[in-house]
């Protein structure tokens, strides 16, 4: 039996949705020990149909990576945001979200991108943090580093803005503004005093 494209898509949709729903059905009937099997079957189905799942279905947010159970907070999942010391710098604390599966005990950490420094440190650290957009170093960068002041490089947008500000028309208007300011300044008391 051969299916046309529309029929094939409909078949895929029902097939995948069925497997996906089965996974969600398991905690309700307290048969979570089967979920690993069902999750594997669901992933195999998506692979066979060459589907790309949304990221939260595959990165361990929705399903436990070890036992495959659907995470339901408070029922089979404990979650908390904890501070974790960064491995390279002990003064920087990274905030991570920790998921602990209550069924198999698997602990999964998600980096949520908040890092904070310990308050007790004296003054800002004069360290050099390498944040090159590409691997190559230009002499300009090197000069900046040598000056012991690591400035953040102006982004392309800012440079473009600067360029735009330096056009002839802009310079003329700026000069005009300055002159206008001077005129208005002549109303100051000091200016009156100087004239007399």
């Amino acid at each position, binding site marked *: 039996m051969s299916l046309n494209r529309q029929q094939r898509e409909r078949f895929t949709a029902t097939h995948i949705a069925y497997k996906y729903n089965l996974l969600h059905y398991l905690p309700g009937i307290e048969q979570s020990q089967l979920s690993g099997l069902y999750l594997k079957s669901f992933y195999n189905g998506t692979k066979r149909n060459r589907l790309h799942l949304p990221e939260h279905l595959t990165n361990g947010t929705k399903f436990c990576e070890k036992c495959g159970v659907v995470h339901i*907070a408070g029922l089979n999942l404990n979650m908390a945001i904890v501070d974790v010391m960064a491995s390279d710098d002990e003064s920087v604390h990274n905030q991570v979200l920790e998921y602990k599966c209550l069924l198999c005990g698997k602990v999964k950490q998600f980096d949520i991108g908040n890092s904070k420094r310990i308050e007790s440190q004296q003054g800002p650290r004069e360290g050099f943090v390498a944040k090159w957009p590409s691997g190559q170093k230009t002499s300009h960068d090197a000069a900046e580093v040598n000056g012991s002041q690591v400035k953040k490089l102006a982004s392309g947008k800012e440079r473009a803005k600067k360029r735009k500000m330096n056009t002839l028309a802009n310079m003329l208007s700026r000069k005009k503004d300055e002159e206008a300011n001077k005129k208005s300044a002549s109303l100051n008391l000091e200016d009156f005093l100087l004239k007399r």
Partner: protein
Amino acid sequence: MSSLKQLQQKSARRKQVYRPILDNPYTDEAHSWPRVQDPAVVAELTRTHVTEVLRHAPDALEAHCGFNAVVAYLQRAAAPPAGAPVFLFVCNRDPVPGVVLAQIPVLARVARCEVVLVPLPRGFIAHLDGCGGGRGAGGHQGLLLVVQNGGFDPHFAEQLRQRVGHATRSPWLEFVAARVGVVPSEVGVGRKASS
């Protein structure tokens, strides 16, 4: 041999994420957050009745701010006669990491007390900064839970309930109703042979 255009089409097709899986009516993840009528009015009411009040008088309302406090409260909340209804304000349109908010709608449905989820419009997260009891900006992850007890204005609660649609029921989270009879057999295997 394939042209560049064909290759591009191929890669675009490969990157396409399969969304219909989220729209299926059983799990219904596309509608996990309730709809809000007049989001601007809800935001203004929340600002005047909750965040401003908490900023000036932190003890006026029973409030829990931040991810850990909210999760801990919801997990140990009691069933309705003892546990008062709560309002959970969430800044889900602000740049809060998705993984932090992923379980919040699930938790709100599973919690034993009545939870009214109130998604707030974009940019509201700045108003929560002063409510965290001395914590710095961003320490609250866009989450604020307020318990509706004596100090809470009942008129405001009514207004909120009218404007925030009830969270859709998820059949897979209603454990008692969804349970089918999986009972262990009482008849031993060996007994039949002996009788």
